[in-house]
């Protein structure tokens, strides 16, 4: 990205707080700010955050040449059902594709008939068919009847939809009909935002493609309004400043581009967390890491594989599939506010329900009476009632005690502390299982991984989770509570392109294949240049979704970028697919025919790599960092008196043996017996088993 001043600002809007980070690239320094999120007008919170960081750092806005923003506005609009009023145009006879879905009852519902999928994002009366048909070879079977299109568009105009989504059968093979329908929409009803499935998600499987495109239409007007508002305010207050937005694929794009690609903004916030995990793991010299973001209600897991977050094209929000390249995040219902409950047969569960921020955990004293993970931590001495959020929020141990006694201890015949410990063990096991599900089950060996905990609650649980998973190194970054914002500023600009080919290896025309890659690539380069990226900063990556003929799920195999594509290159591609299949499913079939399903190109505009200054060794005696001693409850040991440290007082190179608790403004780090922490040259606390260096 073309930039001279080398000053970046990242703004992450979360549910409660807006986190801001300013990076001076030349000096390698980070500065942070935190302001309350303004739910009545999110743009106000963003501007306040910017004001605050400028004030703290003493910089002027003119010195900032890269401003990036992460938002959960897309995810929230879907979950709360607050997207735009949109209409859907399909091939006649298939208007109900969104409601028929894949017919499958939700996974948990095999025996539970009351569980249903969420309602379609576009109601039935706004879903209309047009007469046309493309066949499975991409040829026109029935010509587009333009009168039927005009009728439908006129109806949608009368119904005042804000967005029109067009998803016709086999449009990924031949987009002509979709394009013509779009032209008619723009002619009759230019005010509506038009999304084409052949542009947003040109892949086979009509339900998944339609649903993805509907996301774009459903969110489009909401995101466009938000972006316009934000950009206007920025312009009024600070003159022109180019704004970047974080995408769900872990890259950024300019706000102007984002307005038309709103489906790419789902999970924009959590993607920042994954990028930050990648940054920390690179910084500390690790190729593989697990990002573990534990907040009040959810636990977001990301996998860093060879320095980059793992991505998927089979993600989604809730039960809605989204077939776009996105950072592979696994979210489970485990956080400080997760509720502990005992079922009728006496089994203890924690989550997925949460006390949220209203009424919140019992110990907050906001009216909650049910026991949560935070209550259990408080009872076990693992949270300081007088230093939560730096003392801004006093906690009430007696309320936690009452909740746990009444709802867990008495029902299970356990003491208060045993019950609290059980809550922690269960929630830790849930989180460990979540991590294992997306790592071990995909063939990763966790012994090669580090764990990077962040978000308010993770560092308290991290060592226990790591121990359960066989991970022997935990890196607790210093900007633990603002880490997602850090992820924003380290991300590159990035765009993904896809084209379905659906051909067997023998039917493949290598010249066409090469041409397809080059076309996608050219589009990527054009886009990046439009976003002010220098030629020298552009990186292009090719890959293909491959499968054995007859299978219906693909694996994405990287492909070496080349200017000529011969039979030898094809062999190389095929053998890398067989290897990948073996790695993922523990068998391969080198004699079987391989099918090329989708070609993918990723276009990246690199931001300069951030280098941080290393701190000099300055180990301090532990006594200087000790605030007090406090009893903490451990398994098989009961209460043990341990030292409580203040994180800021440690210097680089300090060794901190467990058991102990390290407190900081927005987070608490627990180091149990048998483990020890070391402050590294970037102020990370690196925790390893005691007997290892």
């Amino acid at each position, binding site marked *: 990205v073309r930039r001279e001043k080398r000053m970046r600002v990242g703004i992450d809007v979360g549910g409660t707080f807006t986190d801001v980070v300013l990076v001076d690239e030349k000096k390698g320094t980070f500065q942070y700010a935190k302001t309350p999120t303004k739910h009545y007008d999110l743009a106000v919170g963003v501007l306040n955050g910017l004001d605050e960081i400028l004030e703290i750092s003493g910089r002027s806005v003119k010195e900032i040449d890269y401003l990036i923003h992460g938002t959960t506005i897309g995810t929230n609009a879907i979950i709360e059902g607050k997207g735009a009023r949109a209409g859907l145009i399909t091939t006649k006879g298939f208007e109900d594709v969104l409601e028929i879905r894949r017919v499958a009852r939700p996974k948990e519902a095999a025996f539970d008939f009351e569980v249903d999928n969420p309602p379609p994002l576009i109601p039935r009366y706004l879903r209309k068919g047009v007469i046309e048909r493309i*066949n499975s070879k991409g040829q026109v079977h029935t010509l587009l009847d333009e009168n039927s299109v005009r009728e439908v568009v006129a109806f949608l105009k009368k119904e005042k939809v804000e967005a029109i989504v067009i998803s016709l059968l086999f449009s990924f093979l031949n987009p002509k009909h979709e394009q013509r329908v779009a032209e008619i929409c723009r002619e009759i009803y230019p005010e509506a935002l038009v999304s084409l499935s052949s542009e947003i998600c040109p892949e086979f499987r009509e339900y998944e493609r339609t649903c993805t495109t509907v996301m774009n239409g459903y969110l489009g007007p909401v995101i466009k309004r938000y972006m316009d508002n934000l950009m206007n305010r920025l312009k009024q207050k600070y003159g022109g400043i180019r704004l970047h937005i974080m995408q769900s694929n872990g890259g950024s794009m300019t706000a102007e581009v984002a307005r038309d690609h709103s489906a790419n903004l789902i999970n924009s916030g959590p993607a920042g967390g994954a990028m930050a995990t990648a940054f920390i793991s690179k910084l500390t010299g690790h190729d593989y890491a697990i990002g573990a973001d534990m907040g009040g209600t959810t636990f977001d897991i990301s996998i860093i594989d060879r320095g980059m977050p793992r991505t998927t094209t089979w993600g989604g929000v809730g039960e809605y599939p989204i077939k776009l390249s996105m950072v592979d995040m696994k979210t489970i219902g485990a956080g400080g506010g997760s509720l502990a409950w005992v079922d009728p047969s006496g089994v203890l569960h924690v989550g997925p329900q949460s006390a949220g921020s209203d009424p919140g955990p019992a110990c907050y004293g906001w009216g909650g009476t049910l026991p949560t993970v935070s209550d259990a931590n408080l009872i076990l001495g693992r949270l300081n009632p007088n230093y939560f959020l730096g003392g801004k929020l006093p906690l009430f141990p007696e309320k936690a005690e009452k909740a746990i006694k009444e709802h867990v201890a008495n029902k299970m015949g356990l003491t208060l502390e045993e019950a609290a410990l059980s809550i922690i063990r269960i929630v830790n096991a849930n989180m460990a299982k979540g991590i294992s*599900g997306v790592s071990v089950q995909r063939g990763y060996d966790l012994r090669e991984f580090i764990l990077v905990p962040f978000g308010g609650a993770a560092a308290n649980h991290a060592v226990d989770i790591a121990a359960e998973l066989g991970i022997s190194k935990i890196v607790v970054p210093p900007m633990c509570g603002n880490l997602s914002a850090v992820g924003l500023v380290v991300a590159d600009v990035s765009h993904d392109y896809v084209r379905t080919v659906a051909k067997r290896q023998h039917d493949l025309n290598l010249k066409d294949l090469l041409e397809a890659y080059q076309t996608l690539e050219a589009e990527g380069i054009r886009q990046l240049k439009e976003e002010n990226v220098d030629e020298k900063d552009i990186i292009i990556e090719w890959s293909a979704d491959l499968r054995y003929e007859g*299978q219906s799920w693909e694996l994405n195999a990287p492909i070496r970028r080349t200017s000529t594509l011969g039979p030898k290159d094809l062999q190389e591609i095929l053998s890398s697919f067989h290897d990948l299949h073996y790695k993922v499913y523990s068998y391969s079939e080198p004699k079987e025919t391989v099918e090329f399903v989708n070609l993918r190109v990723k276009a990246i505009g690199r931001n300069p790599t951030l280098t941080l200054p290393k701190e000099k060794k300055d180990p301090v005696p532990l006594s200087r960092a000790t605030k007090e001693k406090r009893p903490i409850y451990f398994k098989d040991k009961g209460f043990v008196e341990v030292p409580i440290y203040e994180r800021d007082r440690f210097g680089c190179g300090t060794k901190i043996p467990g058991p102990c608790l390290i407190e900081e403004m927005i987070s608490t780090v627990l180091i149990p017996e048998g483990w020890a922490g070391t402050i590294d040259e970037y102020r990370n606390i690196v925790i390893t088993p005691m007997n290892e260096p």
Partner: protein
Amino acid sequence: MGRRGRPFDPITLEILWRRLISIVDEADSTVSRTAFSSLLRDAHDYTCMFTDQKGRELAQGSFATPGQSGAMALGIKNLVTKLPWKTYKPGDVFITNDPWALAGHLNDACVISPIFYKNKLVAFTACVFHHSDIGGRVSSDNHDVFEEGLFIPLVKLYDGGVLNQSVIDMIRWNVRTPDEVVGDIRSQIAANHVCAEKICQMLNENDLENLDDLADQIITCTEKSMREEVEKVPDGIYHAEGMIEQMKGRDNNIIIKVAAEVKGSDIIVDLDGSSPQVDWGGNVVYNFTYAYVFMAMKSMFGPDIPNNDGCAKPIKLKAPEGSVVNCKFPAAVAARLVIGHFLTEIIYRALSGVVPNKVIAASGGTPAQMNVFYGKRNDRSPWHSVIIRGGGMGASSISDGNYVYIFPANGANTPIEIFESDTPLIVEKRELLTDSGGPGRMKGGLGKREVFRVPDDKYAPIPPVNLGIQAGRYIHPPEGLFGGKPGARAQFLVNGVPGNPYGLTQLKPGDVVTMDAAGGGGFGNPLEREVEMVESDVMEGYVSIEKAKEDYGVVIDPKTLKIDEKATKKLRESLKRA
């Protein structure tokens, strides 16, 4: 017992228990991603599970097909306890599709692997796949199982790790799509392999010798939860009778009689008095009957309890031998779902008087509708595809029936963009059917229409295009409960004229087939449905203006689509009096 000879504490128990379930879920996802036939990879017609060394089911995939899972729980236990344990060796893999031993028809082939840890037998892992072809004559009107395809008794596919190629060859030469069937069997072996590896890993990491003590505790704990719920039902014997239409040309219905006796925490279901077995493929083996009786009980008394041997303990089933619900070899069984799926709704009806809040009205997806299409393309290459269709679910006391699901079985549809790539056919419609949901205070789920055309242009296949159907609800619609009305019947039309929806239909280029799936039954009096809900149904096109008036007594202005409150009040009053 746990590591120190004590029972596992409840927390450790739950942690290990969840681990077992995630192991089988992993095996499950291996299948959907590697299998070859669309019935498996897209429609998910398979079930993975594993048992302890005594054959007691411990865990099954979360996305299970109830017919297979219930039948397997019973069948695997019977199979693996038949042979003395010492005959199993590491590396053995068995295969069978014996309908009486497992899931009730030849297409469901099961691969079973004993799992050894430290040279001791610790578990069995098994998966049943519905193979889209198993040879034979693909139709519901065969007279015995010999006509229905290849019968594989329990044989070794691998003996101590060595492949028995003869078995594979024998299968290859007896099916229409050998690459697909053998490829899918390989995927079954892979699923078992994944399961076995992970179980051993789990034993190793937790310092356990075997699964026995863990199994005891899991099963006991599960049984207790089920019994607590059953105990709440007042003791008594509860009756219901189901009437199921037969193949065209046979005017007598099949009758299934249920007497469900609740005694403390036990339920004994007796099907005495049910029709004798029939001379076509609708016969149900004991295991499959049991599976759908179990499905009803599990959904009523423990829908969210993980499924294992303990869930089944409180439930006993008696089915007279030689009846349609416990048929004797060599009865034809290919279309067993046509009758078997009904068991669930008949049990619901029997118990609806005592537990009205735990049941739903009859469903249009009962039975699931299987359609087998096959033939030759114009270049003479063979093609073959199976689709499963669902219908509207029955309504419950608190909610409308869900749309177009396969219930009580489960599964998914095949995307049109995949179906048309696999076949020479064109799908012209796949849409919800207005007014097909049974009227009620809670409305039955909507059924669905699918229209297929055999092209007569340059892509026209070589005739005939064969269409085998296993379905139902063409005569008797899904009934409502407590005053709810029935859902719409199913329909099968060839070129606009009713066809024979039970046997094999042969089509030629230019033919158009319409298949309507039935809607679900309603729950409660439709005149008590909230008028706003009816208004919204009309707005969405789920219910027409005419039916809103006729069935619900709600008058909607066709111009504004708003309720005419005065007229509605008057109409509802007069209808209630009538």
